[in-house]
């Protein structure tokens, strides 16, 4: 029996869409082994969960308890040891990145993060993952069992939206160890609805935007593109303090793989290109026709971003309204 555990992401009482990608990646491994997929849901959820897993393991935690990563990691590690999974799959979201190493350490096994492909070869899990923020891709064989991996959002195919045939509860350990972790509060950021690493569409601005006062032009384009769009920024912009580091795309920020990436007034430094070159479609808007960004862009417009952005937002709004 070679089963795989997929760990879902929950937020505000719901399961995030990326969790179907997690289950999709887990299903690929389970199929190769002839095993089944369990999906663990750490956190309170309302209604039926249709993730495409064979079995759902609910772990209805209060927000406070779900905020303690050691408690969640302890429960997950206990389940893995009890059932004897051959692989455990997380999503490389902010929460998955925090949780996966804690679980791997408890299981005394390594972890491969931000995986973009996973398969079973000669009974081992073999993954591909970007290194140097995408300047190179490593092929990695996981020797230890279980193989613990986290997958990059927007890369794996989603499992079908189907309900599981059975559901169980995940046991919460009484002693979580290192149990002094206390979440005191949460302060939502102004103007951040969706994390740049999870967005399907990213509108990024560079130094050519000339200052934070012009960011409403990018925000209007983002709004026109709908709820799956987020704002991004180049390193120069974050270093200048115009935008928060959470929005930074590149080697010292986030590596992203959206369906559509707008690089606006970004010249295209090597460390930025590394972080976004795996986007499906790249559009560059830049005043300088010689800017390196045009070398990786699928489509480019040479011109003044301040004039082009409002026109682009208007055209996309018009398209979506029809």
């Amino acid at each position, binding site marked *: 029996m070679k089963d795989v555990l997929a760990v879902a992401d929950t937020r505000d009482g719901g399961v995030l869409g990326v969790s179907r990608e997690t289950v999709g990646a887990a299903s690929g491994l389970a199929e190769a082994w002839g095993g089944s997929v369990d999906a663990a849901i750490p956190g309170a959820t309302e209604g039926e969960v249709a993730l495409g897993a064979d079995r759902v393991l609910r772990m209805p935690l209060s927000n406070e308890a779900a905020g303690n990563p050691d408690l969640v990691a302890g429960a997950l590690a206990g389940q893995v040891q009890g059932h004897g999974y051959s692989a455990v799959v997380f999503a490389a979201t902010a929460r998955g*990145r925090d949780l996966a*190493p804690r679980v*791997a350490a408890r299981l005394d096994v390594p972890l*491969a993060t931000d995986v973009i492909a996973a398969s079973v070869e000669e009974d081992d899990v073999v993954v591909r993952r970007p290194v140097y923020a995408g300047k190179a891709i490593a092929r990695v064989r996981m020797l230890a069992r279980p193989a613990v991996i986290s997958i990059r959002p927007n890369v794996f195919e989603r499992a079908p939206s189907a309900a599981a045939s059975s559901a169980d509860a995940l046991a919460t350990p009484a002693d979580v160890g290192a149990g002094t972790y206390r979440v005191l509060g949460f302060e939502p*950021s102004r103007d951040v609805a969706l994390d740049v690493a999870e967005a399907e569409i990213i509108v990024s601005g560079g130094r050519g935007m000339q200052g934070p006062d012009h960011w409403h032009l990018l925000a209007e384009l983002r709004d026109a593109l709908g709820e799956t769009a987020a704002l991004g920024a180049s390193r120069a912009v974050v270093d200048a303090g115009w935008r928060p580091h959470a929005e930074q795309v590149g080697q010292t920020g986030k590596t992203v793989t959206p369906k559509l990436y707008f690089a606006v007034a970004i010249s295209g430094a090597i460390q930025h290109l590394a972080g976004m070159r795996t986007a499906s479609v790249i559009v560059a808007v830049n005043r300088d026709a010689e800017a390196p960004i045009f070398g990786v862009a699928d489509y480019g417009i040479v011109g003044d971003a301040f004039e082009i952005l409002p026109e682009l937002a208007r055209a996309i709004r018009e398209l979506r309204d029809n």
Partner: protein
Amino acid sequence: MKIAVCVKRVPDTGTRIRIADDGRSLSSDGVKFVLNPYDEFAVEAALQLAEAGVADSVTLLTLGPEEAKETLRHGLALGAHDAVLLRGETTMDGWATAQALAAELARREDGLVLLGAKAVDDDQQQVGPMVAGVLGRPCVTSVTEVEVADSVATCRRAVEGGQEVVEVDLPAVATVTKGRYEPRYASLRGIMMAKRKPIAEKEAAQVAPGLVVEAIEYPPERQPGRIVGSGTEAVGELVRLLREEEGVV
């Protein structure tokens, strides 16, 4: 209270990387190595706690080759008090790295262990919480600001959509990211003083890696794109392409 900061030497982010002849590692020829940018934030956080009188000393700890001493010297020039080099090999297996670091940290009495949130070479983002796992101490990740009072560390951490405030009892581990901490530059005086600061050298307690890098490849080249046009007149055609050819809007 003592603070230990775990650091790593990495290729400068402006470096164009070259794959070595073995096809599974990177050529280090002509590569400029620097202190990992995220570790700079961790060092800065530690130095600010020392300057505020919360910490008595800041020790740098690294696992790596002899050349990693240059990185330690740089951290000492910034203001750290002493350093430890664990001679050994770093691989992509962060769990093996974490166990080597933790074996040394277990012998010390640090109230706080700080690390960068990730290293910009392997991008694994895992060593901090794994070190905490070995030591049985709480760990707060992606911290943008840390304060210490009455044996409690209060951390602000960057999460999706905002900032979370988390409190942990000391001793604790935290991984630091960009936020409040603006890394300082080494002063000439700092560089001179660093030459006389002690670097202890030991053999690392290493375990065999549980994963192997079988190959490293360049990412597929993107097909050259095209300039749709200039100025606002090109917008209509661009939107048509994104809808009809690509189906992404």
